[in-house]
């Protein structure tokens, strides 16, 4: 399967880019995704996205519990840090 990761706000700076394509032999759960980030990005990125304050959306729909997510072929997974306000 192939999916897309999107890094919003300051996560884009931490990742060094706005998005990344991800390929795997089977659907990925949250821990698979974190492990994959750890292997492809500076460790600060995985540290940042595991924060409670970072929400995630799949294909534009917010995920209520990110620990339950399953990333399947063609999905877009967005990492959303707190919005700035003000």
């Amino acid at each position, binding site marked *: 399967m192939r999916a897309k990761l*999107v890094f*919003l*706000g*300051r996560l*884009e*700076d931490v990742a060094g880019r706005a998005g990344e394509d991800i390929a795997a032999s089977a659907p990925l759960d949250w821990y698979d995704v974190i492990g994959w980030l750890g292997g492809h990005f500076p460790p600060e990125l995985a540290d940042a996205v595991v924060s409670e304050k970072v929400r995630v*959306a799949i*294909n*534009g729909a*917010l995920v209520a519990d990110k620990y339950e997510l399953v990333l399947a072929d063609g999905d*877009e997974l*967005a990492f*959303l*840090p*707190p*919005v*700035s*306000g*003000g």
Partner: protein
Amino acid sequence: MGNDVRLLAAAFDPAALLGAFTAELPHAGGVVSFLGQVRAGEGVEALELRHYEPLTLPAMCDLAKRVRGRWDLDGLLIVHRSGTMMPGEPIVLVAAAARHRRDAFAAADYAMDHLKSESWFWKRERRDGQWHWIEPREQDFEDIARWG
């Protein structure tokens, strides 16, 4: 009149948008507007707002629907910029038209509080050539808590 909700990537003219909005609403007794702009003179050289296409505009449209459900309005306009803006440039324009003044004031106020604290925008500003991300402010959570 339906809701007019726009997410714009380029500069806009608030007076022209407001004039056009009002011209279509001769039945409304009052129109309240809020214009937010990049503050000049505080060392900010530029402001950047990033958004996430699949979330940002749909959430603005949802907010507009909530506002319309809560107050009796004749029209509602919500315009928000994304991208890079210079000092003095408009960021956001909200206008609410209603038969009764109090409804228009409350609707515009509520829309702004929720746009500011809940919208899917990430903001950074450039000072002395360096970009800095803006963190959420405590004041925004207090503003939004007023509405219960």
